[in-house]
């Protein structure tokens, strides 16, 4: 893990990159990274996340600034601007059932080609997908998702990069940390190595590439 200023971390992200972001309605989203993405005016990003939050919050800021070409999310109901851009054809939105979305990301990070789920069988979600019978029950083959970058918000980070998360800010964060080529972490607290007991580490240090410096 290397510690770098937020400006330098965001400069690593090119226009057109795919980014996974932590957060559930903005809770657990790395806001400093979001603000810097907006400041640097990154273009044509594909965001993979639970939702697009609300206008002015988390990923909602990226929507407002029109930085997104595509969003792969489970819910946009609390962000009328996302719905407006989708209906106007300004942004592509791929809606994925929440449990399928997180499991596709998990598959991407865990070296699996995809997963089989009964969710979506017989609905519009099935369109274009393979239905597979396993011991008499139908499942959809949902393929793995990976991204160029994972933008993670953690609670504690130690000197080597071990992470913990807090309460409902955990959500997608530990899962996306496994599924991207480059993992950038914004943490609430930096603690000395050894302060996080080994069995409380939620994301092991070796998967973390960059930590956003304090201040």
């Amino acid at each position, binding site marked *: 893990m290397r510690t770098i200023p937020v400006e330098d971390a965001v400069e690593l992200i090119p226009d057109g990159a795919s980014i996974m972001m932590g957060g559930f*309605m903005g809770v657990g989203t790395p806001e400093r990274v979001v603000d810097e993405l907006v400041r640097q005016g990154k273009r044509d990003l594909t965001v993979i996340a639970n939702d697009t939050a609300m206008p002015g919050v988390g990923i909602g800021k990226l929507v407002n600034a029109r930085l997104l070409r595509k969003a792969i999310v489970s819910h946009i109901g609390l962000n009328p601007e996302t719905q407006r851009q989708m209906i106007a054809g300004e942004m592509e939105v791929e809606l994925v*059932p929440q449990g399928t979305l997180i499991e596709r990301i*998990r598959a991407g990070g865990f070296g699996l080609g995809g997963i089989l789920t009964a969710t979506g069988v*017989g*609905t519009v979600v099935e369109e274009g997908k393979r239905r597979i019978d396993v011991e008499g029950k139908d499942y959809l083959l949902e393929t793995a998702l990976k991204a160029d970058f994972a933008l993670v918000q953690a*609670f504690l980070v130690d000197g080597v990069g071990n992470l913990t998360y807090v309460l*409902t800010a*955990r*959500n997608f964060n530990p899962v996306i940390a496994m599924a991207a080529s480059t993992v950038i972490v914004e943490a609430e607290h930096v603690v000395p190595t050894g302060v996080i007991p080994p069995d409380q580490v939620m994301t092991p240090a070796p998967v973390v590439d960059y930590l956003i410096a304090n201040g």
Partner: protein
Amino acid sequence: MDAQTIIAKRIAQELRTGMLVNLGIGIPTLVANHLPPGVNVFFQSENGLIGTGPVPEPGMAQPRLTDAGGKPVTALPGACTFDSAMSFGLIRGGHVDMTVLGGLQVDQQGMLANWMIPGKMVPGMGGAMDLVTGAKRVVIAMQHSAKGRSKIVKLCNLPLTSVRPVDVVVTELAVITFPGGRATLQETAPGVSAQQVIDATEAELVVPQHVPQMPL
């Protein structure tokens, strides 16, 4: 009693101590306010919490302890938190005893549509498809009609949430179940006759000889 209270109070009677229960947004959220005395259930919030408690006192919100709408909640003693993969493992894996969700349409076979109106409202399915597919028992809390039209229809014309039929629909007029894939009138609300329910319902209802009144 208003429509929402009738629905929430009746559904609360279905709760049993020890159940793991997931409540959707809207009327389903109100079910938690009508828990019968002595019944203790675990409420799951699909953003990663079991043991969801009431809304915090003013000034006591913890911004990283929220419900699925991103609003601050509290956690009861014995609560636990987890990531989204665990949360949906609980849901899809059949560990959730009961989910209560809102509905746009339920048809006479028990199929539910509750996540989009093409061209009008596309909020996304969120966790609804996983909940209906995976929960042990699916209870729908909705008003009987919208804009004068029955929401209990012959056949859903809105996109389905799942091909797994729901178990129970509770409206301000009636409790309807689906034994053998046929909508069946189980109970009527106080002061409502079976004929009034039939008249207000597009779906063909099986009506037993004796239809008891909802316990509220």
